[in-house]
């Protein structure tokens, strides 16, 4: 349970809880749609990791930018994306954010600052660096947040991005979600980088490693980073430890870990449970208001499914639309 004091009003904190629940239900729903064959492609759930984007986004404006990954529903919903259009995109509908061209792995929501999910590991990070560069160039004060997983630390491009952002003092925040695995591989088996503060310092910027299960801790950790970016003081690397409760994608066999390990994490590390317990304890909500929040979050997702189901498929004749602007 969180022990963090923040400046967040109870209303905002309850809103954050609701967002976490929306992400959770969105993905659980996507999972069951996937099992029923209503969704295709690879669908990667961030269940267990919801605190990170919600804690980060609490500092972001709609016109701030994010770049996301194959595991990006949470990043998008936390940034304010419309779950209707998001669900429609997962179902490949014309009303989806990308008009059904992108799907879960390539969703983007420009209206709320998402420059897109980049399912090629680490590929979105340079894009966030570019958006930050662009803001600096245009004298605007928007910041850019690049989300990526622990596996992305194997990808050279990300170090190019760290270096560029440091050299150019760009308003970008690098957010690593270490969920203990890259597909079947435990982080420490293939990623040597451990000491985040030393690493970032050796490149002339700030890095911190923090618990990512407590949304208020994420919020608190992110504050300095986003302020630094907003004030053109350069980049920060935020490395959050978290855990992926679902398989790498829905339907993935998970031979690399025991059920017990997963259950233990679900029991002890669920960011929604942790935050709920805090809010109850702090008297910001009671059982009933918690139920109301849950019901309203669920309702939004139900509505989104309805919307998506009712929506038309893209017109097959328009398969070549948007290849060129």
């Amino acid at each position, binding site marked *: 349970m969180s022990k963090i004091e923040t400046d967040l009003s109870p209303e905002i904190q309850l809103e954050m809880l609701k967002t976490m629940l929306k992400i959770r239900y969105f993905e659980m729903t996507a999972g069951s749609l996937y099992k029923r064959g209503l969704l*295709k*492609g*690879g669908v990667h759930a961030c269940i267990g990791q919801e605190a990170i984007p919600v804690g980060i986004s609490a500092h972001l404006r709609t016109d701030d930018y994010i770049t996301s990954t194959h595991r990006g529903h949470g990043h998008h919903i936390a940034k304010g994306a419309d779950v209707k259009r998001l669900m429609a995109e997962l179902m*490949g*509908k014309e009303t989806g954010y*990308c008009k*059904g*061209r*992108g*799907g879960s*792995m*390539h969703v983007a929501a420009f209206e709320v600052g998402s420059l897109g999910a980049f*399912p*090629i*590991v*680490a590929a979105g990070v340079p894009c966030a660096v570019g958006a930050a560069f662009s803001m600096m160039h245009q004298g605007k004060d928007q910041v850019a947040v690049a989300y990526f997983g622990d*596996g*992305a*630390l*194997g*990808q*050279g*491009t990300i170090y190019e991005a760290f270096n560029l952002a440091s050299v150019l003092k760009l308003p970008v925040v690098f957010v690593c979600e270490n969920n203990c695995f*890259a*597909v*079947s*591989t435990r982080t420490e*088996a*293939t*990623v040597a980088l451990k000491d985040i503060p030393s690493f970032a310092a050796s490149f002339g910027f700030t890095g911190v490693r923090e618990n990512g299960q407590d949304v208020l801790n994420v919020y608190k950790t992110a504050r300095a980073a986003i302020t630094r970016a907003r004030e053109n003081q350069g980049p920060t690397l935020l490395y959050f430890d978290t855990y992926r409760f679902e398989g790498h994608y829905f339907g993935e066999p998970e*031979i*690399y870990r025991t059920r017990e390990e997963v259950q233990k994490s679900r029991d002890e590390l669920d960011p929604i449970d942790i935050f709920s317990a805090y809010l109850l304890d702090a008297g910001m909500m009671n059982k009933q208001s918690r139920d109301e929040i849950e019901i309203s979050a669920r309702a939004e997702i139900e509505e989104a499914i309805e919307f998506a189901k009712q929506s038309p*498929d*893209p*017109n*097959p*004749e*328009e*398969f*070549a639309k948007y*290849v060129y602007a």
Partner: protein
Amino acid sequence: MSTREQGTSPRKLSYLLAIREAMQEEMRRDKNVILLGEDVARHGGGFGVSKELWEEFGDAQVRNTPISENCLAGMALGAAMTGCRPILEFMFMDFSALAIDQICNEAAKVSYMYGGQTNAPIVFRCPQGGLSYKSAGAHHSQSLEAWYAHIPGLKVVFPATPYDAKGLLKAAIRDPNPVVYIEHKALYSTEGLVPEEEYLIPIGKADIKRSGNQATIIAAGYMLQYALEAAQNLAIEGIEVEVIDPRTLNPMDEDCIFTSIRKTHRVVLVQEACRSGGVAAEWGMRINEACFDWLDAPITRVAGADVPIPYAQSLENKVWPNPTQIVDVVKNACYFK
């Protein structure tokens, strides 16, 4: 007891298991054959192709790696130049883009640049394509063989059947040159006869998968299935087509292809990749150069659309070739003039 006596009866094996068996046999034969890639160990790689190999060969020969495509290709090169025979699996061929510098600028060129002092026996395993592997979208469905077939120093193979998959992979592993070995994701579960006995399929040899004399269809990878389906439908209508599976995209088996076309006088090229600048253009160009006088109709292509691969299935279905298109195009070629 000779190998023959051990049993000549071929078994049914899936394309996936044929690839696995090729690796297994070669790794048993030579402990310097090593498999590298993301999650290739217990997990068996992106599609389970290498499952059970780690249990048999351990870390020494089957090694999970970080997500570092370019460095892995370069590491394979360094290992290949010093006595190993690495097989590197890219989880999806789309990601080989990250390693194209090491593949095309380094591995492909070291033999030549260094005047024959060295060579680079590496197999780059590239699962590619879309089709029955549906809705993987723009970054997990591409067919990028044309990039590699353009680069001297590389060989590029693309088996369409379990039999070819096994024989070509064994040949690729033993080849002293870097080989881009393309496996089609939608073929993994398809089955075919594979002998128990050891065999290799020489790189650079096409295979006539169906004989005919009214037109030639050339199709590799998953497209072979469509070509054969089209051929069957055409036969019902009395058009007997020859279907050639090039199997190797570089070097091209000109003999086999030209001989067929000089017999049939008509040719249809099928390619899943985006139409413009794909390998079919090269086939067509060479056929035109060598068989112009024998051609009774223009060389025609059935190819993927020039678009990134969309996610929605309503769109996806418009992007790739299908057997009906092939039938139509062959008929057009046959009724030309």
